């Protein structure tokens, strides 16, 4: 009897220990060595690496993450090349949504509907859906263009383009060394919001690409007018020009995307800005009363078709945690000055007015489709926009030519 009690005690203890071990085993997984190709900047990749370490310590001790930073177009060409070669594909791809359609078309990605709880990403999951399937999960929402201004030069953000033109001219008149307003003049991504503001779009109701409507003509005419009639933008200005001049305080207002906010808040990188001087606002309203509507999407993690087994389990576990765990989202999205893509994490306007302003600007945008044909639009609009901005092509001809060029491009797909 004495021994029986002792045996029962030992058994109960063993059972209890077994249960604890089983629970731990369920939560933990074997170490995985993952590779991610990231289009994000180095600063953001440092945060990503830190978050991976947090996940690895908790879920898969000993795991490693190799982050390979690639510029947008390099990432696209390299991934297509690796896919065609059938080797060298990473375990994850992190980038904006506009290449997802291309990768889906080329058969490189695998659908994620069965792997992730898609309902957890209510804001922008549509930007990663092609053919009714989901090909990426968002790490943040945004990638939207907005008005950014230097508060030491502009007291309040202009609410209309009329105000903006007057403000910009006033600043340059007062100080000829300072450009009132600048943006990436010949880049279609900066031009599309005007088209949307004038009521246009890239596709009609039947899904046909339509680049030759009155809205497109109006948008071309408007930007041409900004340069040649109002003369409020520099003669030539690309991304680097607007970005660099803004950071050093030589431009009062620019149009740029949320990806630049982190850089502008850092006074070492942007001596004229920082939290004190950086102001964000939605695009000013056009003469028709509508605001230009920037494309919105965010950054997405996609998974190549070749990832399977333990690697895939590791990817799903890490990405699920990174994109849905509140502390991870706060650290990775908010920590990199981006907006969260899940409803559980919100931006507090009082403690984070810059991100709150970015969120307000995001509301004025429209979702950017991941349609692979969208690239034909960008490619066809660019030379015609350049013609308009050098005053050698009329808005009407630019719209008509872009349509022909787009049809040519689509026929090659």
């Amino acid at each position, binding site marked *: 009897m004495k021994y029986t009690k002792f045996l029962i005690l030992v058994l109960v203890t063993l059972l209890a220990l077994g249960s604890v071990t089983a629970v731990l085993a369920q939560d933990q997984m074997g170490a995985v060595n993952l590779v991610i190709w990231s289009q994000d900047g180095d600063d953001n990749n440092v945060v990503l690496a830190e978050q991976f370490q947090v996940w690895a310590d908790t879920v898969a001790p000993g795991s490693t993450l190799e982050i*390979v930073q690639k510029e947008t177009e390099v990432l696209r060409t390299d991934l297509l090349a690796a896919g065609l070669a059938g080797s060298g594909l990473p375990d994850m791809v992190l980038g904006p949504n506009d290449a997802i359609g291309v990768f889906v078309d*080329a*058969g490189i990605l695998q659908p994620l509907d069965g792997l992730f709880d898609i309902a957890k990403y209510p804001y922008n999951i549509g930007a990663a859906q092609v053919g009714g399937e989901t090909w990426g999960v968002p790490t943040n929402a945004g990638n939207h263009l907005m008005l950014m201004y230097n508060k030491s030069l502009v007291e309040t953000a202009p609410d209309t383009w009329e105000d903006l033109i007057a403000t910009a001219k006033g600043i340059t008149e007062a100080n000829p060394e300072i450009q009132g307003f600048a943006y990436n003049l010949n880049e279609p991504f900066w031009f599309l919001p005007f088209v949307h503001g004038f009521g246009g779009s890239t596709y009609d109701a039947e899904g046909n690409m339509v680049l030759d409507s009155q809205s497109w003509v109006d948008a071309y005419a408007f930007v041409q007018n900004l340069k040649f009639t109002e003369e409020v933008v520099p*003669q*030539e200005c690309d991304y680097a020009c607007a970005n660099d001049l803004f950071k050093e305080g030589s431009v009062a207002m620019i149009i740029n995307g949320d990806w630049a906010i982190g850089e502008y808040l850092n006074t070492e990188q942007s001596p004229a800005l920082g939290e004190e001087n950086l102001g964000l606002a939605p695009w000013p309203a056009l003469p028709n009363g509508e605001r230009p509507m920037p494309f919105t999407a965010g950054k997405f993690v996609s998974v190549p078709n070749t990832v399977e087994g333990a690697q895939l389990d590791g990817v799903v576990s890490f990405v699920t945690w990174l994109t849905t765990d509140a502390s991870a989202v706060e650290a990775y999205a908010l920590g990199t000055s981006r907006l969260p893509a899940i409803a559980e994490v919100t931006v507090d306007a009082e403690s984070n007015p810059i991100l709150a302003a970015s969120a307000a600007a995001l509301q004025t945008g429209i979702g950017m489709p991941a349609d692979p044909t969208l690239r034909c639009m960008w490619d066809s609009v660019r*030379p*015609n926009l350049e013609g308009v901005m050098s005053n050698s092509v009329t808005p009407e001809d630019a719209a008509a030519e872009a349509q022909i060029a787009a049809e040519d491009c689509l026929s090659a797909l």
Partner: protein
Amino acid sequence: MEFSGLSGEAILNTLGLIIPLLIALVVVVLAFQFGFYQLLAKAFKTKHALPYTLLAPAAVALLIFMIYPLVFNVLLAFSDLKRNTFPCYSPVLRRPADLDCSVLYSPEYAANNFLSVFFRIRNGEISRDSEGNVQLGRLLRTPDSTFPVLLGRTAVWTAVNVIFHFVLGMALALIMNQKIRFKGLYRALIVVPWAIPGVIVALTWRQEFHAQYGFVNALISAFGGQPISWLDDPTAAFIAVIFVNIWLGVPFYMVMILGGLQSINPEYYEAAQMDGASAVQRFRGITIPLLRPILIPAVTLDVIWTFNKADLIFIMTGGGPQESTNILVTALYNAAFGPAATSEFGFAAAFSIIIFIILFFFAVIWITTSGGLKEVYDR
């Protein structure tokens, strides 16, 4: 965590991978040569076993790095390889149910690819306008991006560059060949453009040609001229890229010609001078003929390099504005890797073969008619 980047650790890691690979390569080559020599000398009892053995690694390398890519390129021209047919050509890619992969290579694909370089092809047929005229194909997006237009622009780009390279290089070499003070310093300064990486040159000049903030317009304004929109105006942009490529190419000629000039025996000039030959006569009668073995290969190489020079144009103008600075090779790059991401590799392979044929015929005709390799053949 690992980051790709040029850190000391990354360099050491890379060296750690490369050095064993190089050692292994040397061992394999030596083993191959030893085996090959034994085969030739012992089994076939060849008299020339040693020279064949010494040439063998170069022949194998030529086969792998030159012949195989050429053959593969021809094979690609017979394919329909483009973005949405990738899954047909790669076993690891996801193949949609409606993608027909029954024929991977065919003469029909080749015909379509080659004809698309010149004509607008729709549903396998050459497209015609409402008046029944054949429509030329666009190699880029603008109406001016047809093959004849791009070939003409490439010819202008190549000719202007090569002529200026030659004339300025010759002039500078003749000056540097004189007894002048600080010759070494001048020579070093002139060679600087050649020593700077092309990417840095292109990026620097891109800034210098900026309409508002660039040095070029500041200079023009200082002399009372009107600023020019160098990178916004099609003609000005083309002039700008030509100017930079001339600036880049002159040192090559100067160095080549100077080397040639210094190898000419001065006694020829002294004898001609005693016979009363003028400077022009000495130049035409002595300098040019004796420089010919250097000049012909230099011009041939320069034509091929300039014809294929895509990097400078890409970085300075991206082919713009309005695709006006594109030449044939930039259009070719665009078809394979351009922003539309159509990845038309079959078409691009056919296009590259046409460019190869143009350059091949140029080289053959030029070298034959100029007698540039006469001395080599005469030996």
